[in-house]
């Protein structure tokens, strides 16, 4: 069932990522790194680029390694195992997949080269807080004058906006009708009228709010326009979600393993905690959720590579909502089974809970995807 060469490539990525992270990103090292100003190690970021990781999501047409989700998700699953937080998801995954679809050739290759080499970080500024995850109803506008375009609005959840040199800003033309034209702009962070508020997220990551106040852009900053804009953005988001699913599964596996280890080592009532059947069954349920989530991770990767658009949409929503829920439930169980030790900052387990909770919120939370799935199912003919 598996293509051998793909299997080998996956093993290579898994090994190299695990070695890299074990060496550079132990839990102790991580505690320091996430408290530094940018929230990740720029030195590690460079090494990641040298390992070619930024090129994994990128199409081979633009100098990337092809973007096969089976490989990308192998990598991000390892990120999940190690609680690795960095600008990869926003810049190397989402922004890359959007920029690839632009027909501005010179701009496109310049930016993608920069992202691939790790020197450029592009933060997607797509969402707005008042519409939650619903991009169809965003309010940021792009009004065209004779010589320029003016952007106005407030964006949220721009991943690692603190270190980005450019933003991808999704906007709509000012026309009233609901299906107004969407367009997407490449906006340098220092462009006049752009202000950002940087936040720390609970998992040690960074994201920014972006205020666009009469930001004048010119036509060669348009990356996408017209009816294809939103579908392209949504496709990139599906891609991002397949990657997130893998990170969540990696985190689930690590959480499971450390909890199992803990129960085997801790003694109470004169015997190991692991000898209590009530606890054993909870571990089995955690184990089963890991196994089912792993199947859905692979299924999401398959859907990205080979399913038609509708099918892909359904499978990604199915995978995201099931995996995000399972990951959160497992993390809560893991904290509980660690007892009071589970509440300690010095123990990794609580940090996994923070990570899976936060990651689950990005690009549509479980409820959002559950709702999408149901709507698609109801509209489908039987």
């Amino acid at each position, binding site marked *: *069932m*598996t293509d051998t060469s793909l*299997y080998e490539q996956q093993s290579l990525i898994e090994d190299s990522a695990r070695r890299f992270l074990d060496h550079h990103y132990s839990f102790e090292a991580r505690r320091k790194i996430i408290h530094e100003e940018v929230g990740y190690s720029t030195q590690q970021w460079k090494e990641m680029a040298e390992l070619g990781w930024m090129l994994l999501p990128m199409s081979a047409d633009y100098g990337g390694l092809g973007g096969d989700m089976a490989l990308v998700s192998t990598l991000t699953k390892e990120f999940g195992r190690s609680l690795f937080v960095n600008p990869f998801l926003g810049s190397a995954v989402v922004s890359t997949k959007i920029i690839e679809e632009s027909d501005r050739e010179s701009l496109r290759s310049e930016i993608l080269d920069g992202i691939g080499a790790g020197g450029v970080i592009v933060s997607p500024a797509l969402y707005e807080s008042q519409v939650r995850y619903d991009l169809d109803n965003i309010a940021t506008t792009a009004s065209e004058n004779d010589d320029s375009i003016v952007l106005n609005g407030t964006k949220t959840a721009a991943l690692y906006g603190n270190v980005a040199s450019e933003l991808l800003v999704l906007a709509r033309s000012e026309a009233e009708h609901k299906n107004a034209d969407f367009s997407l702009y490449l906006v340098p962070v220092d462009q006049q009228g752009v202000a950002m508020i940087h936040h720390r997220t609970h998992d040690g990551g960074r994201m920014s709010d972006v205020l666009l106040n009469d930001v004048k852009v010119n036509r060669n900053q348009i990356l996408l326009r017209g009816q294809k804009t939103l579908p392209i953005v949504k496709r990139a988001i599906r891609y991002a979600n397949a990657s997130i699913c893998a990170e969540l599964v990696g985190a689930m596996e690590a959480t499971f393993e450390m909890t*199992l280890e803990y*129960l*085997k080592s801790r003694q109470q009532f004169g015997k190991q905690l*692991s*000898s209590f*059947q009530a606890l*054993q*069954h909870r*571990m*089995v*349920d955690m*184990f*089963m959720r890991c*196994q*089912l*989530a*792993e*199947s*859905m991770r*692979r*299924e999401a990767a*398959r859907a990205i590579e*080979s*399913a038609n658009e509708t*099918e892909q949409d*359904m*499978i990604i929503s*199915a995978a995201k*909502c*099931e995996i995000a829920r399972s990951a959160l439930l497992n993390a809560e169980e893991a904290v509980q089974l660690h007892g009071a030790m589970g509440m300690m900052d010095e123990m990794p387990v609580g940090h996994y809970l923070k990570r899976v909770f936060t990651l689950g919120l990005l690009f549509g939370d479980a409820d959002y995807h*559950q709702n999408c*799935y*149901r709507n698609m*199912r*109801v509209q489908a*003919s*039987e």
Partner: protein
Amino acid sequence: MLSTPQFSPELEEFRLTVRQFIQQNLPDDIRQMVACERMDLPREAQVRWHQILRGQGGWCCPSWPEHYGGPGWSDEQQYIFEQELSLNDAPRLMIYGVGMLGPTLFKYGTKEQKKRILPDILEGNIFWCQGFSEPDSGSDLASLQCRMTEDGDKYLINGSKIWTSDAHLADWIFGLFRSGGGERKQQGISFLMIDLSSPGVTIRPLKIFEDTHEVNQVFFDQVRVPKENVVGVAGQGWEIGKYLLSLERFGTAEVSRTKASMKRLTRLAYAPVAGGMRLIDNVDFAERYCKIERSLHALEMTERRLLLGDQRAESVDTGASLLKIRGTEIQSDVFRLTAEASAHFAAIDIARSFTELQADNPYQVGDATRNYFNYRKTPIYSGSNEIQRNIIAKAELGLS
């Protein structure tokens, strides 16, 4: 239904051949009973279908190699065959003889036993049942006490077996019997085959609350059994029994059966309703429906990964337990939702209201409520889901 990845072109071709054969050769009366989710098919119907498959190159025994009269299929072919049986409303295979005893004899049987017993299973002449549980040995199977004592060239059997499915239809029973003692209770157990027409055998029907007769208690009172009916050697029974149960790895999750049940539920969900509000338009119903669909898809992909993937050999044991637990949980959810989907109609005991079970009743799902009650058995039988969790805890997680 979410679609699943295709197998190789050759295997998909094989799937079409199987599907076409079933659709063209499955008798309509049998198809209707299965489409109503009945497990308690009359023996005559089971044998009739078995013999139709027999005529097709041993398809009745899909896991059997060619030299025993089977089709000699790969794991993938067996998996696809089982799927197509389910999705086309064909009966389950005659599991005890075909799926369990036959392959156990391939491994542990003597030449004489193979020659005497296998042909009758293949031809559908002899109908088998399985005797494991006893009144005082349920989940704790190894504590079984049904006695087997030597008496010249025979064994004498005394005691009883319970929850014996299909004993009332069967000619022979195989099972585990207490032939001696040992330090561990797993020692001193033997695997024996017994002719149910032997003097001293009595079968008491046990009706389940859903109202059908599927299980029995089988009593043995000084029953004399020839020594050549022991499989392996006396005392080796626990090992053989475990092997036999491991053979059921494709079956216990019933994923494809549940997919077929989901198709029936889907017809209900999307059926036009006066006023225009279909069942699927009810958000709460739709959510439960979608949840089941997603869970079933995850389980199916897990089944394929664990049973047919690269690591199939390592994952068989815990894979089987995981699949059994989740499979039966999801199956129970489907049957409950299907029953509830029928509103007031779900209250009617169709079997006792009409002269016969009508497959063309307005809801086309047979007696969904009875099925819901009946399928409460699946998380209990074949090693309760609690026992399955113990197995995973011990074997996979190393907890004890």
